[in-house]
């Protein structure tokens, strides 16, 4: 396995890899891939301090609207803490692939809840099943308090079925649009009636609200439960194809390739084991084809975490981490809607491209990108800014120097940039003064090419 292939793998299965770590990787593909899965065997849940909810009962909230409102405010503040905890988790995690998969599933089983206890619980459920059995996964998701709230599962009652969850279960979570009928939605919604959760977010069925009559779903008739519906859906191979297609577009190439997706679906349909599916992808020769390397536009989170993995940064104000996500267009725990972030080209518009190109220098170098005609600009810039910068950060260049010490400055681009560099830009890089590895790192990070992985 070439270093370039390993790097490619680590960008897709994680958030990049530095030259020193790259050097310690095993030499053949089987071993590298095996290591990825071995490292992700364990599940480490995220657990932030939620003691503000200790001892609070449902009665306290019902009887005291003012207190309830205060709790809502606290909960929202804690969501920001959870967001930061998640970002910090993504920076060089031990369970690298599991965390990358968690991020992927968070944009598949899309959900949002302002109740931080439920939001954290949901997030950890994503993490627990991220490489496990897809069937168990879907069932667990259908019973999450946050999801029951988000898609009106709680309001789904025997005499007043709410179809929201049933529709998205098929349209977005398992089959894709058009692979079911309106009647299937209505009948399956009946099977999920009575789903609810208690005050702590544990699932419970309200038996009286559950419709236990006969339902006809996908041509089968029976007294189906929600779990039965999920079993029936997954018997349709379309589900394996739909998930494979999404995995392909996220992990391999945003342009789908039918033949390869079908091959993935064959593997996945056998047992719906996510780990087996991912192993198949990472072991396939085509995964390492030139056309797939550097073909993907980094998501804002991949982009941000990738920068921080290259040059560790401490933010003096935690809210800056949120602000960066916001201006880049992807705030964790705050998806735009149940369809999630559209991804790929949709990440980039006139604003986000400018923010992205400028961000590395803002975070790491006082907003300054060295270039050959910099002096005048720099003077002007500092005069105007009066030393004020949008983010207060402390970059750790020593760590960068350690991790990159085995790399000569003029070959740094091989480690920083995944795909090909546009010819003209490559010419420009040639003429840059490369006396400072630090400057050159910022310069490379400020290229459109660095947006790709």
């Amino acid at each position, binding site marked *: 396995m070439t270093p370039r292939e390993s790097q490619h793998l680590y960008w897709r299965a994680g958030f990049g890899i530095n030259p020193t770590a790259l050097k310690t990787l095993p030499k053949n593909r089987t071993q590298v891939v095996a290591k990825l899965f071995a490292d992700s065997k364990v599940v480490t849940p995220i657990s932030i301090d939620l003691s503000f909810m200790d001892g609070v009962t449902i009665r306290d909230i019902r009887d005291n609207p003012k207190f309830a409102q205060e709790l809502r405010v606290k909960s929202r503040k804690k969501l920001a803490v959870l967001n930061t905890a998640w970002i910090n988790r993504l920076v060089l995690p031990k369970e690298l692939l599991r965390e990358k998969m968690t991020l992927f599933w968070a944009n598949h089983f899309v959900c949002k809840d302002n109740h931080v206890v439920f939001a954290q619980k949901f997030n950890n459920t994503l993490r627990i099943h991220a490489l496990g059995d897809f069937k168990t996964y879907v069932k667990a998701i259908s019973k999450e308090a946050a999801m029951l709230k988000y898609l009106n599962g709680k309001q789904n009652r025997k005499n007043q079925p709410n179809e929201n969850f049933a529709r998205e279960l098929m349209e977005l979570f398992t089959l894709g649009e058009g692979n079911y009928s309106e009647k299937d939605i209505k009948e399956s919604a009946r099977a999920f009636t009575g789903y609810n959760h208690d005050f702590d977010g544990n699932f419970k069925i309200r038996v009286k609200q559950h419709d236990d009559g006969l339902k006809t779903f996908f041509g089968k008739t029976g007294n189906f439960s929600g779990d039965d519906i999920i079993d029936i859906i997954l018997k349709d191979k379309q589900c394996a194809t739909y998930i494979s297609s999404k995995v392909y577009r996220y992990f391999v190439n945003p342009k789908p390739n039918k033949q390869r997706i079908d091959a993935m679906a064959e593997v996945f349909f056998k047992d719906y084991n996510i780990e087996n599916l991912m192993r198949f992808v990472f072991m396939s020769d085509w995964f390492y084809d030139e056309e797939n390397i550097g073909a993907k536009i980094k998501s804002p989170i991949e982009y941000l975490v990738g920068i921080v993995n290259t040059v560790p940064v401490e933010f003096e104000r935690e809210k800056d981490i949120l602000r960066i996500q916001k201006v880049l267009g992807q705030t964790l725990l705050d998806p*735009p809607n149940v*369809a999630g972030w559209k991804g790929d*080209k949709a990440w980039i518009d006139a604003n986000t491209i*400018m923010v992205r190109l*400028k961000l590395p220098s803002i975070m790491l170098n006082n907003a300054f*990108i060295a270039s050959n005609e910099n002096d005048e600009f720099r003077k002007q810039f500092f005069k105007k800014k009066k030393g004020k910068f949008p983010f207060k950060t402390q970059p750790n260049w020593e760590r960068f120097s350690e991790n990159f010490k085995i790399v000569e400055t003029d070959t740094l681009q091989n480690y920083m940039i995944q795909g090909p560099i*546009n010819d*003209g830009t490559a010419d420009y890089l040639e003429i840059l003064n490369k006396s400072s590895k630090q400057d050159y790192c910022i310069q490379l990070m400020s290229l459109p*090419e660095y947006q790709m992985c």
Partner: protein
Amino acid sequence: MDRRKFIKNSALASSLFFVPNFVKAFESVTTERLGYKRLVIVQLAGGNDGLNTIIPHNNDLYYNARPRLAITEDIIKLTDDLGFHPSLSPLRSLFDNGELSIINNVGYPNPVRSHFRSMDIWQTASGSDEYLQSGWIGRYLDQHGKKPYNAMEMDEQLSLAMKGEHFNGIATNDYKVLYNTAKDPYFKNVLHHYNDTHLSEHNLGYLYQTMIEAKSSAKYIFESTKVKSSQESYPQNGFSKQLRNVAQFINSGLDTKVFYTSLGGFDTHANQDNKQTRLLSQYAESVSAFVKDLKQNGTFEDTLILTFSEFGRRVKQNAANGTDHGSANNVFVIGKSLKKAGFYNNLASLSDLDANGDLKYNIDFRAVYATILSQWMNVSAEGIIPVEQKLLDFV
């Protein structure tokens, strides 16, 4: 800058760079098709309580439902039935001049009472059971836009409303910062060396192209905006600053057809009175200054201002002297040549509420959009508003 000069300059700008074919497709759309009319959108985020904004001051049901929250004093009575919240007094003259139309009971079928979901619905013009990933202004740009600055949002980030399938508007809360960023010599050099003619269909080509677009938009906005600031005095707040910027852009003759602004904080579950009073006066004072500014510069007659909120609030007050999420709400339209000024329609019945105790809607918000597109912007609503709407008669 006049139109002729602008065309000359943009031709010059585009000859500096290789322009991929897919961008050229946009060039074929002439600016004339965009028309001359401008739309300014004001989003009151959080769900403004429409009932305490336009007050049914002669209705016992209103007072009964809100024993401690109903407005009883200083109501600006406009008709026998309806009046303004006292904070809206700066808008009184607009109302009297026939420059304000208030459309009551605007909403959509099966209303969703979640902020973000309902905001999505308003921004994408979708039904309550569908998820669109492009906004209505974005789709307008897809069909008629040419440059990102044809629609501008006064914020750091772009709302869904402004994102099209193929084309996006531009967001900036400080165009000078945007310009300074874009003119970084490093970026200039990178683009100067950009010479690859085969990248346009690929993601990397798209990135370069967007970078070129962003740079030229920032340059255009910066250089076309007259430095001379407005004579009009605006109140000191963030929302007002947004409108002042919009006025500056409009009065400079920027080729921007849609401006998007927002004022947040309307989620008044508890102690609504003070909060709403403060927010509504910020809104009314700022809008009033904005209109005066436009009038002074002769740009008011080509400008329409649309104000909406993602939902109204429950008719009955809650135990915390606030109101919970409701459904139908009023929409304000401000402009010079309104066909029907004043109250466009009556307030829905306060005795015939929906199962949640909310006002029933009788005007679909998408009909408001469709009307603005076809009657004001002079473009077909087809392909922009997903479901065909019966047009209204306010403009």
